[in-house]
């Protein structure tokens, strides 16, 4: 009997990756949903005896879908597929009734293991119809970013012992003029600290910029168990720790997914000896625009928030596109 399988993810790229990871010789009918609401409708129509569900989606997210499934008592088995690898996220979805948790990026082997474990996969002579998915390159960038963000959030959560809310990243081309506006704002505001770090390798170059609001320092220090008054030296210490974790983990996860190696420059602390203005200098004028990934991290129940901005140079875009498209063949 043909099993209806539903894949729900806001990213076309992730839907395609998931669909490709399903065993070929399996008698299933695959449907796709691009968001939480659509997913619930399709479940009600019986299109998902088995559901692969993403967590971080705009609108109704994965947590909301799990809740609705429970409230409406919809007949489905849910496997959560997410880049949020914090143990806490894992526990939360299980408590909401999810059967299993698969880390992104999904691998064929892991999916097969999970299916075997629950006796869901029966090899059959029927080769299921591969579903065709239109993929947008921007969805690809978003997906790679989601996975990298999840790794960074996990490390941060481990260090702080507190759940980190996964942000929805904004990815777009920004004008250098806009960037200069942001910089001007950071400089005009002495309640903001920033660290900037460059990276280069395999035809891809860029800079990571971490912007931290000073009002977050006290809560951050108490989570890091730092004692005494939080003066300038300790603020710098916290800022460097945070940038080592967030920038380091993010770039590492990006390079692992895209399989490129890179060197990292030493971080520069802005606003202490160098102003951003001086740092950007003439170099910024060489580029008209830049591919920017913006993420706002928030620590749950604490007054801590920071923005991570990853900027790729214009001439890195062909190499990036190449590597992202090769991930889905």
């Amino acid at each position, binding site marked *: 009997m043909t099993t209806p399988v539903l894949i729900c993810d806001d990213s076309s790229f992730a839907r395609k990756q998931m669909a490709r990871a399903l065993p070929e010789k399996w008698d299933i009918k695959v449907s796709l949903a691009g968001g939480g609401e659509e997913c619930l409708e399709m479940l009600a129509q019986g299109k998902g005896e088995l559901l692969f569900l993403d967590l971080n989606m705009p609108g109704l997210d994965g947590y909301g879908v799990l809740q609705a499934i429970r409230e409406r008592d919809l007949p489905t088995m849910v496997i959560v597929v997410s880049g949020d690898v914090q143990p806490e996220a894992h526990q939360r979805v299980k408590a909401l009734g999810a059967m299993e948790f698969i880390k992104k990026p999904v691998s064929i082997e892991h999916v097969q293991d999970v299916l075997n474990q629950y006796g869901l996969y029966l090899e059959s002579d029927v080769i299921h119809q591969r579903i065709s998915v239109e993929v947008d390159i921007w969805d690809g960038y978003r997906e790679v970013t989601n996975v990298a963000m999840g790794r960074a959030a996990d490390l941060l959560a481990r260090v702080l012992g507190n759940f980190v809310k996964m942000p929805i990243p904004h990815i777009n081309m920004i004008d250098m003029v806009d960037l200069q506006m942001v910089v001007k704002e950071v400089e005009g505001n002495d309640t903001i600290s920033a660290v900037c770090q460059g990276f280069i390798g395999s035809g891809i170059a860029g800079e990571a910029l971490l912007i931290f609001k000073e009002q977050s320092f006290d809560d951050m220090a108490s989570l890091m168990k730092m004692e005494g008054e939080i003066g300038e030296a300790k603020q710098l210490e916290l800022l460097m720790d945070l940038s080592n974790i967030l920038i380091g983990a993010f770039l590492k996860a990006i390079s692992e997914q895209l399989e490129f190696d890179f060197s990292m420059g030493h971080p520069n602390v802005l606003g202490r000896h*160098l102003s951003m203005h001086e740092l950007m200098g003439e170099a910024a004028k060489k580029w008209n625009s830049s591919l920017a990934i913006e993420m706002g991290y928030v620590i749950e129940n604490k007054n801590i928030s920071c923005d991570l901005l990853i900027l790729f140079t214009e001439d890195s875009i062909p190499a990036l596109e190449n590597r992202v498209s090769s991930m889905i063949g």
Partner: protein
Amino acid sequence: MQEQTDTINSLEWLFDIFRSIDVGVVIVEKDYSVKTWNSFMVNHSGVSSQDVINKNLFNAFPELPDAWLKRKIDSVFMLNTRSFITWEQHPYVFKFRSYRPITGTAEYMFQNVTLIPLHSTDGAVTHAGLVVYDVTDVAVSQIKLKSANQLLGKLSRTDKLTQLYNRGYWEESLDIEFERSKRSSQISTLVMFDIDHFKNVNDTYGHQAGDEVIRNASRTLLNNLRKTDVAGRYGGEEFAIILTNTEAHTALYFAERLRKKIESQIVAHDGVEIRYTISLGVAELSPEMDNHQQWIEAADSALYESKHAGRNRSEIYSKKTL
């Protein structure tokens, strides 16, 4: 055979470079025992590698900031990511003399340190590498640059007569505040004022008396500012103040208080006592304004309204006054 010789050669070359490179390399285990100590470290510390290999780094160098550095090394093992220490956090990790003991200005070597997780074949982090860079020249020149820039910045930002911000710097600040308020939808208000019949003061008592009045007005203004307010000398006898996170009605209290304070001032010059008054215009930032110039125009038109209504008073800008 040839291939083998090449491999041996290139390993030897690598080793030669590793010995002579002007960067410190240290490898430690989880318990901080030293496994590698290159020539840079030997030469700068004066401790040979035999004396430190297999010993605990912190026993060999008791002056190291141990709790702090241990935390950094531990986090490399735990998180499996590179970690960076900049000279701005700690001028140095290892207390080495500067490379130019005679002609240099720094006594000790400023250092950047990178901590790198090192893996065994099964992927586990078994060691940590510390790479020590000498950044003395960069650090010294940045510190010098900073103090020079601070001086220059201060000079080019202040108006000589009043010690308030000059027009150029003040307008830049207004522009930044304009963008910030727009973005965060916060309410900020601009107050502009000028001295009533200032030309008469100059004509009657002379320009020096005029300067004295301007100085008095700016001093009175400075004494009545909150820490977050930004005040500048906008023109000859015209002044402007940005009141952040303040509504027009609150700003009007500020304006009226300032007006009354100034009304009660007596400026003594060459044996004469001069009294003077000011007229003020108040304009809250509104969503229709496209740039900071329009904000200035709004405050200016309220100021004009005050003048028109008889001077020595404050008016809030409303659209019909334009």
